[in-house]
């Protein structure tokens, strides 16, 4: 899937709506894919990640991984939900030294990465045949409304 593929813009009116949209999206994501979340501090990336976790049936609190870099959540019925935050990572070298590749494109796993811009083109380099990288861009319109841009085939419209 090339970056120029068509995308859709979804507007949500509240954090609760953003979370609900992500919850619905979880079912449409192919197994083993990596979702990257671009957006400024406070855009709602962790809210979006929590929605994806809820969509996978994970009920435990989904908390900010800024401090730990990665939070791992077992999925009911097997597999993992990996929630990474690269806010404190300087670049691809640091990410690899941390062991990032162990969290990418794994079977029965959904990986979500906040602050993916820290990786440069590492994700595309690591992308195995048949695997998918789903870029999601969250933009704040005001203090509650958000525009979510994602590949058109996953927008669920």
């Amino acid at each position: 899937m090339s970056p120029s593929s068509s995308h859709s813009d979804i507007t949500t009116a509240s954090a609760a709506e953003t979370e609900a949209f992500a919850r619905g999206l979880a079912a449409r994501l192919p197994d083993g894919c990596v979702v990257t979340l671009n957006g400024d501090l406070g855009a709602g990336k962790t809210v979006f990640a929590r929605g994806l976790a809820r969509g996978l049936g994970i009920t435990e609190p989904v908390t900010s991984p800024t401090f730990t870099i990665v939070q791992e959540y077992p999925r009911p019925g097997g597999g993992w939900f990996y929630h990474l935050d690269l806010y404190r990572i300087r670049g691809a070298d640091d990410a690899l030294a941390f062991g990032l590749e162990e969290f990418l494109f794994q079977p029965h796993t959904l990986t979500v990465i906040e602050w993916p811009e820290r990786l440069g083109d590492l994700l595309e380099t690591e992308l195995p045949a048949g695997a998918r990288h789903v870029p999601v861009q969250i933009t704040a319109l005001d203090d509650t409304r958000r525009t979510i841009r994602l590949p058109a085939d996953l927008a669920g419209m």
Partner: protein
Amino acid sequence: MHILGIETSCDETAAAVVRNGGEVRANVISSQITTHAAYGGVVPELAAREHLKAMPIVAAAALRESGLGMAGLSAIAVTNHPGLVPALLVGVSFAKGLARRLNLPLIGINHTLAHVYGAFLDQTARLEQPATYPILALAVSGGHTLLLLITAEGRARVLGSTIDDAAGEAFDKGAKILSLGYPGGPVIDRLAKTGDPKAVAFPRGLLPRSGHPVDPENRLNFSFSGLKTALLYHVKGRTLEGQELADVVASYQAAIVDTLVAKTVLAVRDSGARTAVLCGGVACNSALREAARLAAARAGFDLVVAPPKYCTDNAAMIAGMAWHALRRGQVSGPDLHVAARLPADLGRVPFAPGAG
């Protein structure tokens, strides 16, 4: 009995020698804040590399300061969870090597429980008194915001925690939004003293407001993510200066402090705790210390506030708590593992009088 404690769970490399759980003979901390300041936070691999460099130097300094040789030690204690895995591995590997070389018992220590213990390091006799229990601890740092209940029998459980950002993270990200540098806690504490905490009405996450009760399952939980967003939209990309900056900082800090104190009082009331403890790095915050003291006096419970030198990460709390574990035969094997997260089951708390 002298125990050497090792602590590398986050950005401090620390070693300490403590005699019989409370007599601190040496407490050495190699602060890495200047290295991390450039990156706006803790970089785990960087931290691991720094730990690797600092570990032998810090441990040797602690032994020298204690006036003991290695032959004077009875055990080696080390933080093995929770924390940043690459950083924890440095301390645990070092401790394992030393224990093996000196043929001494190795004791893995829970960092969060050690913070509670650290609040009592200057008055460990209180921990021997059953009347001190149950203890309700607010453990609050860059990575954690937890309410823990510890019974006299040594059972511990988490009553509440953050559902999104930790309180220390709220300080750090708030400072980032206001371009105040890293770490955020000390600079916000200092600036807030000259500001009006009522200037801006920032949200108090998961606290009841008139007509908005809190969902019962979040009664003792925290949320600081909305506060960060509210600050962002209040600032709207401007660079605040002078009195306006001080007022915004004071109001932001007040929202964090009010929430922490209100939930602690609620947890004391719900649990019937006899003693409340304030510990962890954020417990250095002067407004939080003052507000907690006022609240305890008003509500009529005992409050133990960790001395600032034992609020931030240190190894004295590790070596101190380990003495109780050693006394009770709770020794780790050479396969001692590290873990990033606090386990759901906290096991037996070795310093409680009935922990048997």
